[in-house]
């Protein structure tokens, strides 16, 4: 399991038209990988994520995706994801088909995918308008033991899941520390697992019950310090809450958004150069 430059990892494993889950819950969002997807001008992606974050706003605004599966699409604590809204409300820069769930449903759908099951079961009491909007995508079944009506959520099995993590060891084992969201389930549900990490170490020194992705499950690893910025990596750097607030202004206007992407993401060779431009590199 070789360490690859991120550009090579994305070029090899994220192909046009693929279904791609970038997970991490507020914490460890793989921004560097998303930026590389934008630089390589991927098209027609089916993006999957519980909480599409700024990186999804950027990928959608740059025309990388034609479908989004999600459960909450906002800028946490700030407001809207303006590029996501523009895509759904005004089809800019292109139409975006959506498959919408609740958090609990996506968590269950990843678990089913990771478990080799066709669907997950959840308690269900009354149909909401989301249930009605989804029609046949979601079905209820009757429990053969209790007779209760349960919601069947189809499994999610991404072509590739991309995560950011703290460390990789010399063998390629990856450790994740702190808030995990549904990252492990998304990793195990996917056909390929692409990881970026803060650093490579000889040994992980992880407790026995730590969240470790064994090397033979990991398709490719790239060392990208700061790879989650403006999200964060516990033990390395904090969430850049000021950037999340600034993004609200940057993303409101199509022209300003495109200019920002050009000046920061497209004209940077890699993530280190981007962080230097954003003046967060120490």
């Amino acid at each position, binding site marked *: 399991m070789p360490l690859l430059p991120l550009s090579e990892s994305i070029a090899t494993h994220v192909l046009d038209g693929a279904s791609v889950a970038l997970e991490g819950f507020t914490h460890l969002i793989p921004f560097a990988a998303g930026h590389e997807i934008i630089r390589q001008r991927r098209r027609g992606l089916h993006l999957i994520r519980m909480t599409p974050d700024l990186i999804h706003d950027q990928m959608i605004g740059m025309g990388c995706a034609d479908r989004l599966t999600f459960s909450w699409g906002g800028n946490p*604590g700030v407001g809207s994801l303006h590029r*996501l809204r523009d895509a759904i409300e005004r089809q800019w820069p292109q139409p975006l088909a959506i498959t919408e769930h609740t958090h609990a449903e996506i968590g269950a759908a990843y678990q089913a995918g990771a478990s080799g099951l066709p669907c997950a079961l959840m308690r269900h009491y009354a149909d909401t308008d*989301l249930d009605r909007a989804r029609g046949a995508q979601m079905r209820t079944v009757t429990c053969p033991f209790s007779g209760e009506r349960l919601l069947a959520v189809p499994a999610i099995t991404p072509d590739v899941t991309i995560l950011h993590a703290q460390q990789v060891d010399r063998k390629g084992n990856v450790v994740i520390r702190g808030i995990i969201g549904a990252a492990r389930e998304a990793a195990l549900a996917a056909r390929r697992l692409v990881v970026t990490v803060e650093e490579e170490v000889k040994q992980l020194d992880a407790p026995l019950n730590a969240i470790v992705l064994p090397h033979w499950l990991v398709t490719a690893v790239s060392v990208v*310090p700061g790879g989650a910025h*403006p999200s964060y990596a516990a033990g390395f750097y904090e969430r850049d809450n000021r950037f999340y607030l600034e993004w609200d202004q940057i993303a409101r206007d199509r022209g300003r958004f495109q200019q920002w992407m050009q000046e920061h993401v497209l004209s940077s060779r890699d993530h280190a150069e981007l962080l230097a431009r954003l003046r967060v590199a120490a």
Partner: protein
Amino acid sequence: MSGGVQASGAYTADEMMTVTAARQLTNGAVCFVGIGLPSAACNLARRTHAPELVLIYESGTVGARPEVLPLSIGDGELADTADCVVSLPEVFTHYLQRGRVDVGFLGAAQIDRYGNLNTTVIGSYSHPTVRLPGSGGAPEIAAHAREVLVIMKQSPRSFVPRLDFLTSCGFLGGSGERDRAGFPGRGPQAVITDLGVLRPDARAGELKLTALYPGVSVEDARGATGWPLAVADDLETLPPPEAGDLRVLRELHARTEAAHATPVRIRLTAPERH
């Protein structure tokens, strides 16, 4: 007095809302907390009358005791101060669906007279005028938490006769429909607004004005509601926030602003540790 943050003497409408929401929480309750006013209210309660309140954020941080208010649901502050951090599927199944949450806090863009909530779209689903963030954890919180507290500002645009989209269930069509559907949680038990408090009528489930803030009239509340608002016979006027509550709340906000203003710095070359 209308919606929005407005000074009314020595405190703002937001502060009155937050203090009123905090007062609904009993010591020891297990709360599923959202970001914004709910998080401020829960942390105010924890620092005043309810020190044993258990705060669960959907990021999987169980028993969080943040010193500063998080901007997002998954700020490091929540993990660093939690009893434990579990995965998202676990928090929604083992904690919420299993019935271990006493109080869920929700907000919404629209609420109707039966406490049903819309956080999905304004306009039609296929061609929305305004695309809102969506469900998040709300539908399951509304179903499973023993009780739900709703916090939102009151205006005819948000307190509507008919939702554009039903995201999370309150009392559905009222008159026992929620009970008949078999929901384990009792549904919204209080709606805390910037004007006062609404509570459901025990039989019909229709929200009724039960309390007003100082200086707010019944007419103000009716004018900010898109349906003919019922008023409780024993309508009360709540006292203004106590000085101690305001001090704790303002200190919390001041610490939060200072923390969020600290610039982030990232080392691109890790020190040789091994």
